[in-house]
């Protein structure tokens, strides 16, 4: 059933009882040409593009919980392509372009809202770094603007211009950046993939990876053994655990990142704004809740919950950046488990095992990457060849000395 204004009216008039399931609930077949482990945004997008762009037919996505139960459903929904390094910027811009056509492509409104992302700077050093970043974006053809204090004051008068401990000097704006409705992205890809024949198998936990003669032959799951020709891992947060089943040792630590939403409010903040004197970032959802977050809690964790000290720190940053937030009530906090890589950048890569492919290490930035990650991973799996925009995201870049370190923090994941 195609979604449209017409379909809504038609169904409404018939009591909304004729809507069809968004996807089937298939039982696993004994063998798939490609199995993707992980029914989150990246896994679902990979399956969709494998089917649509690369013409593969016999594909399954295995999800241990419900579709979209991982980080795609617990993030701050920010979409942007404002990176500095050549290993990242072309990839994220490719993603941005895919976002821009995604809803029509999927026939699903993911509420992409290109409301503009503004990164504040507070001193000359930060300004220079943002100029470097903005120019790097322009090199890739991505428009960026440097805003001075006067321009910012006009645009965002509620920022703390009068009493900030670290004065706000200006910001870097990417107008095309913004937000999208996170769950809808997963559901849109799931529905579209399902319509192309991909089997989306929920409540199916992978418990082992079977290898014979050095290649993967299938996976042991809570629903029994399922054979496959190629296996793609897209289980961010749990990458190390799944990788271990195939004997992979990875440059990944799992960390918890908390995020927050306030009570619903009438429109107050129209952009995505990030604080330069801390990690704080904020936007307002279409429902009215202010959605925000900051840095990871700092210790390795697989628990999807954080600690109060970090909560307080996040609020301190928020109130310092926008003093008027002080009386807003935060409704809910949650935690997502991040794959933190050694350089803060992701991995889309072949592995030492021929038919095993890896998609991981998304750190804070997985949501915005969803379409490109899916496309490039599908490209790699289908053709056994790296997509040009993802060519730097190799697993062996650490060994070879080609880290993509946007923060310059070095091989300590919790600093990225």
């Amino acid at each position, binding site marked *: 059933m195609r979604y449209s204004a017409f379909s809504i009216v038609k169904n409404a008039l018939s009591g909304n009882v004729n809507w069809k399931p968004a996807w089937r609930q298939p039982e696993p077949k004994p063998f798939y040409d490609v199995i993707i482990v992980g029914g989150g945004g990246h896994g679902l997008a990979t399956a969709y593009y494998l089917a649509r762009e690369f013409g593969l037919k016999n594909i399954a996505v295995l999800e241990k919980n*419900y579709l979209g139960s991982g980080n795609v459903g617990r993030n701050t929904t920010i979409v942007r392509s404002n990176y500095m390094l050549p290993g990242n910027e072309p990839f994220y811009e490719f993603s941005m372009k895919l976002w821009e056509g995604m809803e029509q492509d999927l026939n699903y409104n993911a509420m992409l809202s290109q409301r503009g992302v503004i990164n504040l700077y507070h001193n000359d050093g930060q300004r220079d770094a943002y100029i470097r970043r903005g120019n790097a974006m322009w090199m890739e053809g991505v428009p960026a603007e440097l805003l001075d204090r006067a321009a910012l004051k006009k645009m965002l008068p509620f920022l703390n211009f009068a009493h900030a401990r670290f004065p706000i000097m200006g910001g870097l704006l990417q107008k095309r950046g913004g937000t999208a409705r996170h769950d809808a992205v997963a559901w849109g890809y799931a529905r579209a993939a399902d319509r192309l024949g991909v089997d989306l198998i929920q409540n199916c936990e992978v418990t082992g990876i079977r290898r014979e003669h050095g290649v993967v032959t299938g996976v042991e799951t809570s629903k029994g053994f399922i054979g496959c020709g190629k296996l793609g891992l897209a289980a961010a947060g749990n990458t190390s655990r799944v990788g271990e089943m195939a004997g992979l040792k990875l440059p990944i630590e799992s960390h918890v990142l908390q995020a927050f939403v306030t*009570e619903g409010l009438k429109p107050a903040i129209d952009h995505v704004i990030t604080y330069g004197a801390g990690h704080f970032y904020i936007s307002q959802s279409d429902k009215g809740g202010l959605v925000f977050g900051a840095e990871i809690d700092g210790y390795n964790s697989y628990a999807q919950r954080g600690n109060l000290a970090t909560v307080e720190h996040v609020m301190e940053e928020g109130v310092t950046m926008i003093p008027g937030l002080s009386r807003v*009530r935060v409704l809910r906090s949650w935690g997502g488990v991040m794959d933190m890589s050694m350089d803060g950048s992701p991995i889309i890569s072949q592995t030492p095992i021929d038919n095993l492919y890896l998609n991981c290490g998304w750190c804070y930035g997985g949501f915005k990457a969803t379409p490109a990650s899916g496309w490039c991973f599908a490209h790699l799996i289908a053709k056994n060849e790296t997509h040009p925009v993802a060519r730097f995201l190799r697993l062996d870049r650490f060994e070879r000395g080609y880290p993509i370190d946007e923060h310059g923090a070095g091989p300590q994941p919790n600093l990225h």
Partner: protein
Amino acid sequence: MTAYRLTSGGLVDRGANLDFKFDGKTLTGLSGDTLASALLANDRLLVGRSFKYHRPRGIVTAGASEPNALVTIGKGASTDPNTKATVAELYAGLDARSQNRWPSLKYDFGAVNGLLSPFLGAGFYYKTFMWPAAFWEKVYEPIIRRAAGLGRVVLERDPEAYEKCWAHCDLLVVGSGPTGLMAALVAGRAGLRVILADEDFRLGGSLLAETTRIDGVSAQAFAEASLAELRSLPNVTIMPRTTVFGWYDDNVFGAVERVQKHVAMPQAKLPVERLWRIAAKRALLATGAEERPLVFGGNDKPGVMMAGAMRTYANRFGVAAGRSVAIFSNGSAGYQAAHDLAAQGVEIAAIIDSRSDVADVAPAGVRLIQSGSVIDTQGRQRVSGIVVERSGFEETIACDAIGMSGGWNPVIHLACQRGAKAVWSPELQTFLAPDVGNGLVVAGSAAGRYTLVGCLADGAQKAAAIAADLGFSAPAEAMPVVEEDIDPSFTALWYSPGAKAKAFIDFQNDVHVRDIGLALREGFGHVEHAKRYTTNGMATDQGKLSGINATGLLAAMQGISPADVGTTTFRPFYTPVTLGALAGTSRDEHAAPVRKSPLHGWAQKNGAVFVDSGLWYRPAYFARSGEKTWRESTDREVRNVRENVGLCDVSTLGKIEIFGPDAAEFLNRIYCNAFLKLPVGKARYGLMLREDGMVYDDGTTSRLSSEHFFMTTTTALAGGVMSHMEYCAQVLWPDLRVRFCSSTDQWAQMAIAGPKARLVVQALVEDDISDAAFPFLAAGIVALKGGLKARLFRISFSGELAYELAVPAGSGEAVADAIMEEGRAHGICAYGLEALNVLRMEKGHVTHAEFDGRVTPDDAGFGRMVSAQKPDFIGKRLSTRYGLTAADRMQMVGLKPVEADQHIRAGAHLLREGAKPSTLNDQGYVSSACFSPTLGHDIALAFLKSGRERYGERIVVWDKLAGADVVAEVCNPVFVDPGNAKLNV
């Protein structure tokens, strides 16, 4: 009139009238009221509009689970949107306004959405608004955003104060109802340090609405007596108005105390809210149970209320919710409400019970309809009747309020915040907390023990067990005697069949039964999917009323047990908490501490304009009269240092004293260059790498004696370097005999630079500091005239003849004053960070603008400094990786514009002349740039692919952000005195 104030009864002070405003109209309540009870007493049933359909909504509860009665309280920057009227303590002058309506609460334009509701079912927005693509941000989204949201936030600086506080106890009791009071009494008497916290302004919990007598006195008197005893115990702390919102690892609880939210004019010396972090050895959750709403047609009209809330309004606040009340119930609680209301003279229109053959007895003369189902309600902005269906017959019964009671949901939120999943109890037809370990036990109604006797006993027993466990002996106590205890049992009813109108589950978010059905039909049957797809439970009440009904409905619709559906995840916050409370005092200028140099006062006297540098304030430049821009001051300072002499405060550099027989070996391992044989009395530049081979930090280290070194680090990484060294000393090489401590704060350190530096310094120092006696890179302890001991280093960041002088911090300002005084004859000036930066760029010296964490020593031109001889140092092995030694790496070069009047900005990128801008063609970037007063044009340091081979090449400095392209010549990065002639004089 329907709702009204009863002539007597209730825990309100009938002698204390409080005037307040609602939507501009002045009303009167009583001391002891909540805003909700006062509104009811004034017969204000309609208090808000729902989120999606803008339906009229009234007060449903008497507590924190309220979905409807959300108002905005306060004015201007002190505005609190989305405040629950049911927990807002009334005070004189309270000014509340309704929300989400336009132009008024009564006539709300948004109500048109209700007519469109067939088109606005769950998830409708995912299916449309996609065409044309550009319309989303411009047309659809703004409309949706305006319609959505609830209250309006005033994004102005909050004038009120907040603070945080720590508390520690043996036992935290959450909730002061019968369970909590007994637990606190037992534990308090046994000598435990007890904290009893309750969100209400009046303690006693359900006892405040109870009509039963305990130990021969009223429940209220029993509560008061218990509290009086607790107040008399020095080991017990009672915290009213304190909501425990979160349970965190190691039994740390987050709580927020509303210190002054109930006063019109807060005192300045007290916060309005205080955040508590409570570290509790044990905790006892006595949070009671929430009454479950019934899902029936038209259940959202103003006048439909929880039966228990009606009891609370009648018994605690002396307010009747209506004159003629119908009760719809599936258990005993509804009867209890009917009895209490009837006793207060309220007419009970009927009791409709979904069960048959019930043992419960209706008040005398009240009609009881068993096996009945409410299928609709009458009235527009308030209830005027109910439509009851029984055995196929419909009947309309007139009433002006409906009390509903669907059973009980134990409040287990806190117990399930750390990953534990709620467990379905088939006996109790509800979800209970599982065993979550020793740290927290759930007791009383929160554990499914609903009777008063059960609550008192459970609280006492569990507290005694905790006391024993912690090594206290709790004497066995006689339990209070309860008269007429009622067991509020019920038979679950997830949906009252035959609805002729929308039957709501989530009142605030307008989720009704059909939405759940649609979610199920479309494959969103997982409880989390259903929540996310329909938004059920995502409103400001966090699904306190709607969550379990949604689970029950999902189960019923699929013919499975609620156990197989489960609940959505419980997460902090139990009730919403202001960002202000969570931020406390750390905001605005107090967001981070300020560090001040011992020379801060000196700098101020000399006209410094300060700039942030990490936590420090440092002088950026010293404005003199007549200078209009920072550049004028900076250019003067630079010229003066090059021509005469200047004084710069470098006290903020990290300083570390390193002692021990293995200190030299230790330094040799943490620096990439050699330190083992540094002679006593010498300083050396040191480069510190990370283990991945990238430069981490740089500085100078001097050997003051054979076993005493003095290191300086950059200001930015002072803390990081210290931690890194501690890691190396403690974890990597614990056998090295080395100790160190920070001396950053002990020393006032100043750079005296310029050709006349020696003249100035020698005038202050007793020792001979001639070039022969104290050559370049000399370091040692000297005596200032007058006897003060100081450290002197002949090191130079500017490239001039320069000294760094360190004196004990307290004397710093006096010494700096003396230097200025002495230097006046030699034309001394104070110079700041801007000039320092220009001076170092002219000399080709690097800072963290160059060392940005992605740069190797070789990239920055220090390749030859890296010791090949040393067997090991941090970063040695990974420096040799292919990518770190590749020929096309970016290397540091100098740039000067081909046309001298053109400007270069840091952050610009580099392109070959004629090359098209693209990531592939990107040749590098400018790390630092400035106008060089010495050379009379801009200069820059840049990183350029294979840069050192490209001196003399013309390159485009591409700054698209500024819209500027400048052609520059690649050159050696040392612009001034490349032969170091100025250093060795």
